């Protein structure tokens, strides 16, 4: 059962007119969208289960216009919801019925690439993939590669602390961003981090990255670029049991190997994507592992040999090493297209994002199998196995209210299970609106109060992306009441944190 969300409802037309007039004084004409037809395309992000048209949409083109929007909204007491490319999977940029949706899409320039310092200075609307494309001529790349990288923007990546397939070796957004510049809700300019490797004072950058647009509206990002490895080679290994595949993942890590990527797909997932992509997956295997080594020719040869030996010893059946770059890309095409493939075989899909300690993998996958029959829905699994980040894809039909209800409950059950085994409800997609209730389960009240305190320090009136990322104490109290059965919390033996 979901408690009603903050910021949903109908538009107050008088407030819309007043806010629009105030914003028109600081923005050029054409930067404000204020009719129902204009605002409708912004009613959701990539989590389409939740929709709410915004009161207004603004499209500033400069940093000073962003600051001006914030000052105007601040003085009117109007909430602001920042939005990048709208590819977020947790409803982090779901609009507010009484608020302004602040699109950063027009701030889309690569300001500078410094090949010797190995940095790129970017506006927030630069697409993730465009960074590596621009850096390629210097032999450099930007490492985090979320699967939405052709569309998602660096501003959104900063908001969500995005990961991707290669973050096992190269880290998340937090590890690859040196500094950000932006504005608080009151329009005050803030810089966090620096081009140097540390900054005096508290590390505010750690708070801003992954804050889901609730602390600062980021208007400039300085990222570090890495030298592009000469070569990457991918292995594909088949396993007749999911448990064996999970043990093989642990064996690779225990052998002291940190592959560039280490991904798992279960049989339901390979069978779902194969007709769509023709990746050449072993459809008889209960699970496959994709494992990538990168570096110099000699380094890659050495690592591939070691990985192969570990996989064999761990009980892998067939092992294929991609013979060419084209074959390597084909291996990955299946994995990277898992979400679209889900969209092909089912009217709708709901992508979960829990992270668990790797040793719990077999237990969790087994439990998800059981939930498939409980909720009467299929759920193929793709999995960033190396870092324990699960993406179960619940297949459902949004036109069938009962199917939606079951998908929602299925998702909640998976998230609560992730907490139970010592993991987290979100590895890289963010809390947004989607997992707001689960934060009540994952953290105890004093820790949640500390999150609210952080928010107050940046935005005392709580106007920047309200209702997202961090639940209010009241919300958790309501959620707790709804989920207490017979006086007991679910999983009463859990340490709550």
């Amino acid at each position, binding site marked *: 059962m979901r408690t009603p969300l903050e910021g949903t409802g109908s538009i107050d037309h008088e407030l819309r007119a007043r806010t629009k007039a105030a914003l028109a004084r600081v923005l050029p004409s054409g930067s404000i969208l204020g009719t129902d037809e204009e605002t409708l395309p912004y009613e959701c992000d990539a989590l389409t289960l939740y929709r709410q048209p915004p009161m207004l949409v603004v499209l500033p083109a400069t940093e000073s216009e962003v600051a001006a929007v914030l000052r105007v909204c601040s003085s009117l007491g109007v909430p602001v919801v920042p939005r990048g490319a709208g590819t977020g999977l947790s409803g982090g940029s779901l609009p507010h019925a009484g608020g302004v949706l602040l699109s950063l899409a027009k701030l889309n320039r690569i300001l500078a690439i410094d090949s010797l310092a190995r940095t790129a200075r970017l506006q927030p609307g630069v697409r993730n993939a465009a960074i590596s494309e621009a850096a390629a001529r210097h032999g450099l790349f930007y490492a985090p590669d979320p699967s939405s990288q052709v569309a998602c923007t660096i501003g959104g990546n900063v908001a969500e602390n995005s990961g991707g397939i290669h973050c096992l070796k190269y880290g998340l957004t937090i590890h690859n961003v040196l500094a950000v510049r932006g504005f608080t809700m009151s329009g005050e300019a803030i810089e966090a981090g*620096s081009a140097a490797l540390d900054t005096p004072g508290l590390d505010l950058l750690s708070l801003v990255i992954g804050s889901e647009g609730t602390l600062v509206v980021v208007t400039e990002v300085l990222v570090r670029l890495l*030298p592009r490895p000469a070569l990457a080679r991918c292995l594909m290994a088949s396993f007749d049991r999911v448990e064996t595949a999970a043990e093989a993942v642990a064996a690779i890590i225990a052998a002291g190997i940190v592959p560039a990527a280490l991904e798992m797909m279960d049989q339901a997932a390979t069978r779902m994507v194969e007709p769509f992509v023709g990746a050449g997956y072993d459809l008889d295997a209960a699970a496959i592992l994709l494992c990538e080594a990168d570096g110099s020719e000699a*380094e890659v040869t050495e690592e591939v040999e070691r990985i192969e030996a570990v996989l064999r010893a761990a009980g892998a059946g067939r092992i294929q090493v991609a013979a060419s770059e084209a074959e390597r890309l084909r291996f990955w095409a299946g994995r990277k297209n898992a979400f679209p493939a889900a969209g092909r075989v089912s009217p709708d899909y709901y992508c979960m994002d829990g992270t668990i300690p790797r*040793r719990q993998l077999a237990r969790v996958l087994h439990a998800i199998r059981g939930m498939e029959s409980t909720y009467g829905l299929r759920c193929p699994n793709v999995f960033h196995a190396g870092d324990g*980040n699960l993406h179960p894809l619940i297949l459902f039909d949004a036109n069938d209210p009962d199917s939606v209800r079951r998908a929602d409950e299925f998702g909640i059950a998976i998230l609560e299970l992730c907490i139970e085994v010592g993991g987290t409800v979100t590895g890289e997609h963010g809390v947004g609106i989607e997992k707001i209730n689960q934060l009540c389960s994952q953290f105890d009240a004093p820790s949640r109060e500390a999150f609210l305190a952080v928010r107050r320090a940046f935005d005392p009136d709580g106007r920047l992306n309200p209702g997202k990322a961090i639940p209010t104490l009241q919300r958790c109290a309501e959620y707790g009441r709804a989920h207490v059965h017979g006086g007991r919390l679910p999983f009463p033996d859990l340490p709550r944190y």
Partner: protein
Amino acid sequence: MGASTLPVAITARLAEQVRSAAASRRALAIEAGGTKSFYGNPTAGERLDPRECAGIVAYEPSELVVTARAGTRLAELESALAECGQMLAFEPPHFGSGATVGGCIAAGLAGPRRAATGVASGGVRDSLLGVTLLDGRGTILAFGGTVMKNVAGYDVSRLIAGSLGTLGVVLEASLRLVPRPAAESTLSLELDEQAALRQCTAWMASPWPVSATAWAGGRLTVRLSGARSAVGAAQREFGGEVMTAEAAAGFWSAIREQTAPYFDRDGTLWRVSLPANSSPLALAGPQLIEWGGALRWLYALEDAVAVRRRAAELGGHATLFRGERGDVGAFTPRPAAVAVLEARLRAEFDPAGIFNPGRMYADQSH
């Protein structure tokens, strides 16, 4: 990791000390081994010693994560990791045998591997996955967790790294680990400062397995870490004199622990942190340069104003690390808007302003 794994009696005692200090607004000086008490500004107050809260709580090598209580000695932790072929990616300095996990996190200092090009690199905060903290009300808070990817809630754990105890007392932490490199080799070349900086920049712009650099007195020493083939190839390409494994281990330990001859001097030692590929400092005084040029140690002959001005010109900052300080603050002042935000954060975590007052900035409390 959670409050439940902590030793109840010990944390209750620490919490009581905090609550009682807060009630009478009495300052507390958090100190365990005291190995880094020189770092930051002097602070006065009743000592709070978290060393009883010690021990490795969980270590599963195949998860690449360790959870340890704050009072665990850093040396004990590192030897437990080494037994399983793993290590902390950030190669923290101990500055004495009493160094603890909590102090290492609160100081936020990383060693020679900080700017490495490979998987083992980054600062303290980059490896920090979760922290359990005793705040200024005596409440135990737990942030983050034990998994690599976790975006639930604000990343308060990483905020704690380098906060010098001014937000709370670290009780327990979970850290990401990396495997020890399969091969390692150290070599050195005669180069002047300018040439050494250029050389480091060139190496680090290509995928060479550089894991540390140190330049002083006309000699650049570089450590290579990684796959056997990669280290061998780099060694052939770089040239120079190869050190024996034993000599290399001694050399890097002396850089990390500041026991190298360079550090055997009187005067004021500055830690100047700069963007990659910055020009020579061009300030008077002997220098030691690490992190491919991004970290410059300087026994400055000029005053604080000159050092800080030059660091700022180059886009960095200068910390007065050791030695005579007079009335100069240890850290470069930050912009007013940031100072206000920091004060507000501190007021939330430590409302009575009792934790290490003035250690970071004279105006750190409100």
